[in-house]
């Protein structure tokens, strides 16, 4: 029997729990040569802001042990550019398209969310209150309970489809932030965005990144991300979408066991542009091997006794 990989995030039905993480998959066309995007559970598109942004100066990337730092800083065409230039090309992808909504002010989040709310083929947004690479807003919203609640509540007023909030790992207590965001109307949370890190070139004595610090992603952060998913899933009733360092089907299953209802694959797309279909196939063969008929039985399946 073919196992069922279907999961639900609020009222989105995902054909499988494997989605691509914002900022790591472009808008989808970048990977069309490698596989059909409709095989994915969903695509989280690049962080989208009120106006076009150029992002941070080059250099924006540093390789680290089993990970990377980025300081892209929300370069994007702005919500109007997204709607006019990109949306028409991807709206018929046959998978859920979720816009990662970013901003410097609550007003900017509201503006973007309102405009995205009007798009027929975008069933959900992901509020990015955890971008470590912008001077204003971003992570600042996601690292304190009152501001996380405020932006969530404000966007909730104008956005009427599935609203996911993406949390920052750079906090003392992620479960607390998740609870606050749940209370403010989030339908799901994504855990986690990048860890704030830094790289130095000892020869030149300069930071590698133009912004000095950047966001750490990749396998290096997986143990931290997994722990945070586990803590968050125990603290909230809304679904948790797990991410951070997922490279293989086994990694994805670990996140499900820790309490994630679905996962996002980020940096791994850079290492292997065909990684997502491989992860989906790997989950399926794990389920066949373990005689698991419904993937939902893996979610929160960690045995701790």
């Amino acid at each position, binding site marked *: 029997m073919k196992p069922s990989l279907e999961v639900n995030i609020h009222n989105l039905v995902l054909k499988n729990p494997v989605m691509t993480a914002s900022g790591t*998959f472009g808008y989808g066309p*970048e*990977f069309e040569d490698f596989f059909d995007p409709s095989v994915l559970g969903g695509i989280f598109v690049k962080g989208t802001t009120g106006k*076009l942004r*150029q*992002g941070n100066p*080059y250099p924006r990337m540093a*390789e680290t042990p089993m990970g*990377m730092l*980025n300081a892209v800083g929300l370069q994007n065409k702005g919500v109007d550019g997204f709607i006019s230039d990109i949306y028409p090309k991807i709206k018929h992808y046959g998978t859920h398209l979720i816009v990662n909504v970013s901003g410097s002010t609550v007003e900017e989040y509201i503006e973007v969310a309102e405009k995205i709310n009007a798009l027929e083929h975008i069933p959900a947004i992901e509020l990015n209150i955890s971008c470590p690479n912008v001077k204003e807003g971003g992570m600042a919203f996601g690292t304190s309970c009152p501001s996380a609640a405020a932006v969530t509540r404000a966007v909730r007023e104008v956005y009427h489809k599935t609203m996911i909030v993406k949390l920052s790992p750079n906090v003392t207590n992620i479960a607390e932030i998740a609870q606050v965001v749940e209370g403010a109307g989030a339908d799901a949370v994504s855990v986690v965005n990048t860890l704030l890190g830094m790289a130095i070139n000892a020869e030149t004595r300069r930071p590698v990144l133009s912004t000095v610090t950047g966001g750490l992603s990749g396998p290096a952060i997986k143990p931290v991300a997994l722990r945070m998913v586990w803590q968050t899933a125990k603290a909230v009733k809304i679904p948790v979408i797990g991410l951070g360092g997922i490279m293989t089907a086994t990694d994805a299953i670990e996140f499900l066991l820790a309490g994630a209802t679905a996962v996002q694959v980020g940096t791994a797309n850079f290492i292997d542009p065909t990684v997502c279909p491989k992860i989906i196939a790997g989950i399926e063969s794990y389920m066949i091997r373990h005689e698991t008929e419904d993937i939902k039985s893996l979610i929160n399946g960690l045995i701790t006794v």
Partner: protein
Amino acid sequence: MKKFIHDFHIIENKDLNPGHFVLTLKPEVNLPPIFPGQFAEVRIDGSTGTFLRRPLSFHDVDYDANTITLLVQRKGDGTNRLAVMKPGDTINMVYPLGNSFHIGSSGERALLVGGGCGVAPLLYLGKILAKNGIRVTTLMGARSEEYIMEPERYKGHGELLLTTEDGKAGTKGYVIHHEVWRERNFSFDRVYTCGPDPMMKAVARLAVRHQVPCEVSLEQTMACGVGACLCCVIETNEGNKCTCTDGPVFDPNDLKNWLE
């Protein structure tokens, strides 16, 4: 241009000098079309220091033999790992990536200026230009005689000019000091260049002075190579562009602060 992800087998790994080597690679399938200036993102296994792929230009493409070659400079963990790979070993590549050099029309004369490992893409470019009836002159700048790499291969499709820092071979100095740039000698319709940024900037300014079009091939650090991560940007007059998709080949006139 359709992109692929294929395993390649190493056919040969030849040291050119202590800092450089040439890999000849063969895929299990037929090579797709590859244009001069394009590059591959190479996965380097067996090195704890290389998490990301490494971008390397196509140095040559041989459709008859169904092989490609890479000219690689030893820099760090990744290229040092490639340096010790042996015939039979496999490496995985995402390719062909990026735009390519503009091929002028038959009868044109082209000057290809490479510094150090920057000559890598100029071999294949020269071959294709020559095939299209363009007269090719390659100007290669090397640190010393030892670093003049594969001169015969460039001579196969045109003229080869040299500079070395100590002057033991070719003109003494850098590529910009070569007499080919003198007003009375300069007789080219187009300049192509690849190498360190300061060299390319100087070459681009010379091309402007000679009022001929110029193309430069950039090497920004990359994570994805396919336009997804926005890490490899270069400032242009129209805002940030991705070196991996809008480049690596650019018109220096479009690049911010490049001709100042």
